[in-house]
């Protein structure tokens, strides 16, 4: 029996395409348990970006949590730099508190992680897979790239303490240049430096046209190193022909405690928020006591639920009516014949008017008869 693609919901179809892409590049599926000890997540709350974790008591009284995230668990189980590179992907449901709703939500996540020495090739491979993933969802997609080294370099040597920096980074993420100016002025940052931050925040566009402008904003080694990495990505994109869908945007800012290098975000048309989030997270790996690097991304496929708004016109192809007098063998044979023709058949005693069908049939003289 062949399965019609029509039967799949968009997110289900996407999962299979993504798995095919990841397997093609030699990534292996990683299956994990539904829960983990709560303490582990509690220690890494800010990485999750959510305060709300669904907890319950295990059989031995230990406090457990329904997984709010997969990356943390994968890194926890990863080996250090002595082990060979790990290339894994996952397809799991995670549970998080939903903002405002006051309730927990099941989130369908598909993600990919590269754990081991991350060189220039590894970065490009992961970026390309992120891009292919977006492409698999929609032809109309945009991927924004930033570099944490550039952004933190921007805030280096300024009269800002850790809290101020966090606040400024949040403003950068919101492209809120007026608030950046206000905070920095308050803290006594000089006008030239404020302008540098504001200009970087406002930059947006394809790498070719924006990279030279970003280069002009560099003021230290950290930023220059970041530019070298972005340059390499820029020239790869040029050769791969995917330039027009990838933009440079320094407002893609992830938590500086966890992320260090390239960070990126993906959008598809019709979904109002970013569907793909990823980046280089060596800091997280080190925090969890492993001496290696890592880069990866996750896609939030539950967001696709509302993408396909075209409704099915019919519930079923055929409604087949029967009653006590109908010959059972004729009925069974009739159903068999219709379904083997690829039609969907619903058999019931009466047409209650709730079901939308293309044709109404009944059994007469041991054969099928169209009645409506």
């Amino acid at each position, binding site marked *: 029996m062949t399965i019609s693609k029509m039967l799949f919901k968009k997110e289900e179809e996407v999962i299979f395409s993504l798995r095919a892409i990841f397997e093609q590049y030699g990534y292996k599926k990683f299956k994990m348990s539904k829960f983990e000890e709560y303490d582990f997540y509690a220690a890494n709350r800010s990485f999750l970006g959510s305060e709300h974790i669904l907890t319950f008591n295990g059989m031995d009284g230990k406090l457990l949590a329904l997984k709010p995230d997969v990356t943390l668990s994968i890194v926890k189980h990863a080996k250090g730099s002595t082990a060979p590179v790990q290339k894994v992907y996952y397809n799991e449901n995670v549970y998080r508190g939903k903002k405002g709703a006051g309730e927990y939500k099941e989130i369908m996540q598909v993600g990919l992680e590269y754990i081991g020495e991350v060189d220039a090739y590894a970065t490009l491979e992961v970026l390309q897979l992120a891009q292919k993933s977006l492409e698999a969802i929609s032809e109309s997609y945009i991927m924004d790239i930033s570099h944490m080294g550039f952004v933190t370099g921007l805030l280096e040597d300024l009269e800002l303490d850790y809290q101020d920096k966090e606040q400024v980074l949040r403003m950068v993420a919101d*492209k809120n240049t*007026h608030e950046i100016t206000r905070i920095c002025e308050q803290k006594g940052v000089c006008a030239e430096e404020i302008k540098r931050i504001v200009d970087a925040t406002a930059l*947006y566009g394809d790498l070719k046209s924006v990279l030279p402008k970003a280069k002009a904003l560099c003021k230290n080694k950290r930023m220059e190193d970041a530019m070298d990495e972005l340059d390499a990505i820029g020239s790869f994109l040029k050769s791969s022909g995917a330039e027009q869908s990838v933009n440079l945007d320094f407002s893609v800012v992830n938590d500086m405690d966890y992320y260090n290098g390239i960070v990126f975000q993906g959008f598809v048309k019709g979904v*109002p*928020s970013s569907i793909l989030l990823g980046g280089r997270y060596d800091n997280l790996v080190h925090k969890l006591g492993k001496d290696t690097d890592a880069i990866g991304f996750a896609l939030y496929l539950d967001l696709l639920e509302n993408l396909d708004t075209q409704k099915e016109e019919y519930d079923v192809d055929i409604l087949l009516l029967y009653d006590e007098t109908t010959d059972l063998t004729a009925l069974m044979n009739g159903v068999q014949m219709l379904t083997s023709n690829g039609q969907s058949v619903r058999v019931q005693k009466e047409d209650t008017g709730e079901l939308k069908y293309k044709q109404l049939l009944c059994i007469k003289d041991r054969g099928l008869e169209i009645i409506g």
Partner: protein
Amino acid sequence: MDKWINIALPKGRLGEKAYQIFESIGYGCPSIKENNRKLIFENEENGVRYFWVKPSDVAIYVERGAADVGVVGKDILLEQDSDVYELLDLGMGKCRMAVAGEKGGRPDADKTLRVATKFPNIAREFYRKQSIDIEIIELHGSIEIAPILGMSDVIVDIVETGTTLLENNLEPWEDIVPISARFIANKASYKFMNAPIQEMCAKIEEIIKNK
């Protein structure tokens, strides 16, 4: 459908003032001035569609992509912690978020501070940073009565001139943050409609500068 820019405006004086800005830079929509109960207005010529929504709902429409851009008070953005781009400070509807209490009074540091407010998240965040233990009393209006009746020690609310406070024998004790109207954009719209939104943004900025 793609070519439309959907703009969410807050019903009321602030929204009307904001509309004037949009009109003056070429995004006018004559039908909006007709006095009727319609909530959506569009102008095919320049591809804009306006919605009038409750002021506290603007950020929700924009965050969820029903509107591409919108005008909203900073108080709402802070309270709802909206995930949108805050592109411009329009400099309109200026006021401040402040803590107010009885005239001449001071908070008693030895007990839990009872805070009456319409903005529980802003109040909680403000006191959390100072490690002050508080109890939030969430109200929906006439906040000034709470301390008069002894139901709360202070209020956290928007202060424009301070007249209402004075008339109720209260005074601002401490400013939390300055408030004004902001021009916001949905994050995905900003990507897919970058050129038209940036153009709109630049024109508005020009107008504000010249004011």
